């Protein structure tokens, strides 16, 4: 932060060579950036590291010499760096928010085709296929040798099992059918557990498969969608 010399013309003449050399240096660095991208013999992380470093060098080269911060009072540097620090803070804060993202490891929708079985333990709401019709258990029971209608309620539609496993935490899960003629919508708000594995049943108007559904999972600012 030196002041100006007594002869501003001589000072400016000296700066000419500084500006020219800096300009050549900036062009050379930019050339290096482009070459390492073309050659691509390094790993991605190394290339990104080099790009990051060269950008910082060029950035400070321009503000320090071209923008005269080297010769100006420090107040100008402080004013500019305040904005720069806030900008970088914003960037890292948002990156941090988006860094923890949920991953849908498994998502399956399959028609329930379990036929009724004798001497089997059933829980309330279980579905079975008996003949051509679907039935839902009224209460927990163990089946006898023959099908007892008093334990079952005939349902209209096709029951499906929907299973999913999500890792990376989630605070909202939304599952819906892509077919308007076979509607389904499920919304849940887990506690943000790191790993969620659930299975639920859905009574649909007609048969469907995984491809007919989409699942959307949200964790803070991050949405993951599987169609």
């Amino acid at each position, binding site marked *: 932060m030196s002041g*100006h010399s007594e002869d501003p013309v001589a000072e400016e003449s000296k700066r000419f060579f500084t500006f020219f050399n800096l300009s050549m240096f900036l062009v050379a660095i930019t050339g290096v950036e482009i070459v390492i991208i073309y050659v691509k013999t390094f790993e991605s992380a190394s290339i990104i590291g080099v790009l990051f470093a060269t950008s910082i060098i060029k950035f400070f080269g321009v503000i320090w010499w071209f923008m005269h911060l080297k010769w100006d009072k420090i107040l100008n540097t402080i004013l500019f760096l305040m904005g720069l620090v806030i900008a970088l803070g914003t960037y890292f804060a948002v990156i941090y928010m988006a860094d923890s993202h949920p991953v849908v490891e498994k998502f399956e929708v399959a028609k329930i085709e379990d036929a009724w079985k004798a001497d089997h333990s059933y829980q309330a709401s279980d579905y079975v296929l008996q003949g051509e019709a679907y039935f839902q258990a009224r209460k927990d029971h163990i089946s006898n040798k023959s099908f007892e209608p008093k334990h079952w309620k005939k349902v209209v539609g096709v029951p499906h099992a929907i299973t999913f496993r999500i890792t990376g935490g989630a605070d909202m899960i939304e599952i819906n059918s892509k077919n308007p003629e076979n509607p389904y919508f499920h919304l849940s708000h887990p506690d943000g557990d790191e790993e969620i594995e659930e299975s639920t049943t859905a009574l649909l108007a007609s048969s469907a498969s995984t491809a007919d559904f989409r699942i959307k999972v949200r964790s803070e600012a991050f949405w993951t969608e599987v169609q």
Partner: protein
Amino acid sequence: MSDASAHALEHHEPVTSTGIPNKKVLMWAFLGSDCMFFGTLISTHLIYRKISATVGGNFLDIRDVFDIELTSFSTFILLASSLFMALAVSAIHKGNLNSTRWMLFGTIVFGSIFLACQVYEFTHFVHAPGNELTLSTYRGEPHVFGSTFYVLTGTHGTHVAIGVFWLLGWLAYSFTGKMSTAHALDVEICGLYWHFVDIVWIIIFPVIYLMEYAM
């Protein structure tokens, strides 16, 4: 009298309590705030690039659209324009009006070439056969990449255009016969703006363009 005050008097600048001309402080404060503006735009682009990395179930490979040779050329052009600008400021400080005029003209020409490259690039991207990148779609599928990319690079292009008009104003003024070293500060402030536009591109080029080739 301090060096700065002596320099202020020499260039007919009013002495201020900070020892820095108010116009210059104001410009630096503006550039600081513009840093936040571009920081937000760059952050938005990078975040959406990360969380919306696919289109139609496949990884969005924007290299099919980008023309890195053209963008590299325009980057060199903008860097060269910064040299012209620095030399224009240096020349006006020395009272060399003819040199100032030529350096301003060089900056304007190079800035205009950069803008022309950007217009060509945008047109090429929007109409790239099979790889159309519009504000809201990529290859006809809805995607956010076009929005964040065009808003960011378009905002930068607008800054360049404003800079070109500002420089054109100074170039025109230099022919009125009224321009002297008394205007050195004003040209220097214009130069600060121009260099800022350059450093923003110094960040945009590797982060938005080159990074796509590193992944």
